């Protein structure tokens, strides 16, 4: 994955020259390394594609009646949300009412139906939920879940890690042992307990995953703080009498946070995966909420077609499965490439 390290003209620049490169030059090299990696570029394009789908969700789908009503659209002007000149277009994209996240229902049929019969893009699940609508708006849910969970876990990790690293001693020891325990608990089991106790909802799923996601960031942060604590400018700040919290906030955090932001954001794929797994088990969002895991759990009773036609309802489990796979794959491809860039030693 790192062809440039093998070529002779690059070999000489790896050693001492690297240290003399100034910041922009090093960034340029990292970008070059990243660009040369075909899998990384594929990952980047895929993530961009998902961002596009999520953003353009109102334009891509036929909005259901409740959503149109909440957007204050009537039968006469109901397609205004596809017209960029009208303000409702921007409202639908940036501040859609909650009802738009309710999957459009084509019918109330107990059986799934294919695309041709229902005149939908990908067919419907049992209950007449439009698969295409659920997947497109589910992309928004996926990003929302991913970003919020990363945000919460990141905040907890940063606070605990920096305090632990800066204060040190017994406090550090206790906090790190606690972190060890949390990190060794299976995330799905913890999430199972939390969601069961707090109740089924997308918010509680996010909380449940954040509870298990923070320790790795706390460890990273602690390591960075321990390293930066020894720097001269921190000693200087202490010498002029700054308080520890001030030092952490002004000097340590800004210098430590960069790599952790990247590591954390690359976890979005696996976070969405855990959320989908919970939904699949029946601990997810309320029925009808656009969420990939729920789409798969709709499929659970319709995995097999009638006798003799095993693939009769294939679209019910195939499309949601494929979308989740592609989403996780995209983030993993990106993550893999970033780890290569961040750690030139890795092969």
């Amino acid at each position, binding site marked *: 994955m790192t062809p440039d390290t093998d070529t002779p003209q690059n070999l000489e620049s790896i050693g001492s020259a690297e240290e003399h490169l100034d910041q922009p030059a090093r960034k340029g090299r990292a970008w070059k390394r990243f660009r040369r990696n075909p899998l990384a570029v594929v990952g980047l394009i895929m993530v961009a594609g998902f961002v596009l789908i999520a953003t353009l969700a109102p334009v891509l789908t036929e909005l259901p009646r409740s959503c149109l009503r909440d957007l204050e659209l009537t039968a006469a002007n109901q397609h205004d949300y596809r017209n960029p000149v009208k303000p409702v277009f921007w409202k639908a994209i940036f501040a859609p009412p909650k009802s738009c996240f309710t999957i459009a229902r084509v019918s109330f049929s107990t059986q799934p139906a294919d695309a041709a019969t229902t005149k939908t893009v990908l067919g419907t699940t049992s209950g007449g939920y439009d698969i295409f609508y659920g997947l497109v708006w589910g992309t928004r849910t996926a990003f929302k879940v991913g970003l919020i969970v990363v945000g919460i876990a990141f905040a907890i990790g940063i606070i605990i890690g920096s305090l632990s690293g800066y204060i040190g001693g017994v406090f550090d020891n206790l906090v790190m042992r606690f972190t060890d325990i949390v990190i060794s*608990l299976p995330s799905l089991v913890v999430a199972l307990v939390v969601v*069961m106790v707090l109740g089924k909802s997308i918010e509680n799923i996010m909380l449940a995953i954040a509870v298990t996601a923070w320790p790795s960031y706390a460890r990273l942060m602690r390591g960075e703080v321990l390293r930066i604590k020894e720097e001269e400018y921190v000693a200087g700040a202490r010498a002029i009498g700054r308080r520890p919290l001030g030092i952490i906030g002004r000097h340590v955090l800004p210098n430590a946070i960069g790599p952790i932001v990247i590591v954390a954001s690359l976890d979005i794929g696996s976070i969405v*995966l855990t959320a989908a797994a919970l939904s699949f088990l029946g601990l997810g969002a309320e029925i009808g909420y656009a969420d990939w895991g729920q789409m798969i759990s709709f499929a659970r009773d319709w*995995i097999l077609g009638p006798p003799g036609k095993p693939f009769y309802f294939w679209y019910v489990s195939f499309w949601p499965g494929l979308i989740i796979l592609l989403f*996780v794959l995209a983030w993993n491809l990106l993550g893999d490439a970033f780890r290569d860039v961040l750690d030139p030693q890795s092969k």
Partner: protein
Amino acid sequence: MLVFIVRRLLLLPVVFVGVTLAIVLLMQLLTPYQRAAAYVQSEQQIRNIDSIIVQYGLTDPWYKQYGRWIGEVVKGNLGYSRTAREPVLTTLGKRFPVTLELAILAILPVIGVGVAMGTAAALNRDKPIDQFARVASIVGWSLPTFVLGIWLLVIFYGWLGWFQPGRISDAIRISTGPNSGFVNYTRMLLVDSLLNKRLDVFWDALIHMVLPVITLSVVQSAQIMRVMRSSLLDALGRDYVRTARAKGLPEHVVTHKHARRNALIPVITLSGFVLIGLINGVVITETIFNYPGLGQWAAASAVNLDYASVLGFAVFTAMMVVLANLLVDILYGVVDPRIRYE
């Protein structure tokens, strides 16, 4: 060594208290009425819910509730599982061997395939086999367990009809039921069937395990492969490998005896995480394949809001993880003599 093991075993009660305390505190967020639901067994009791709250002291401060609960646990009473309709402890005893059997069978391909593919990829760096292994590992790693499980079920059960969900066929179940003379020594069917000299049962149980084992192992072996590849590449660049080559040792001795043995150390570190991944995977896999182990019970209990069961499962899992990590640490020393237990 002994001191090390004892000290690590002392961690068990700490984890136990930590995990249970966290759960009990979390449950304080519920109203006493909701907590009482964990004890309700019938319609009759719902009408007398206030008396249940008084009976179990659910309005007491949390530390009293916790103390009472711990007292029960020490006596061996983990509560009653509404989902399994029997005491939680009984269910744990019945279902753990089922899951353990599945997990042991899954670990073999995880380690075997992962290490073999990782080795092949590292020894053929940048050749087609390496490229293939890397793409396969990243796709395998990204495959959600539930998606893979469902797709396998559609193809191999629905379409080809080779395998079935469940643990055992109905006919075989009847022939091994009570009064059939079939003795459950370990409750692990593969072992028990051999001890009972019933090859038909052995074969049937094995066939039923194929799909769950594949589902469980794909994701984890991809992870092992990645680590094996990069750590072997790292080892191959070390001085001792150059020395071994300079001595004129045959190439396969250099790669297998010198480089690979050292490259295995990070893989062993990872195996602790593989176990966690397997526990997560078991909950989903057993649910998809209707396999009557701990995971299926835990998932069903959580959906049923069966607090006692999920609590029991969570505590049991946490204990298992601590024990397994201890095992991993001991294994470390076997592979890497440089490691000292202090």
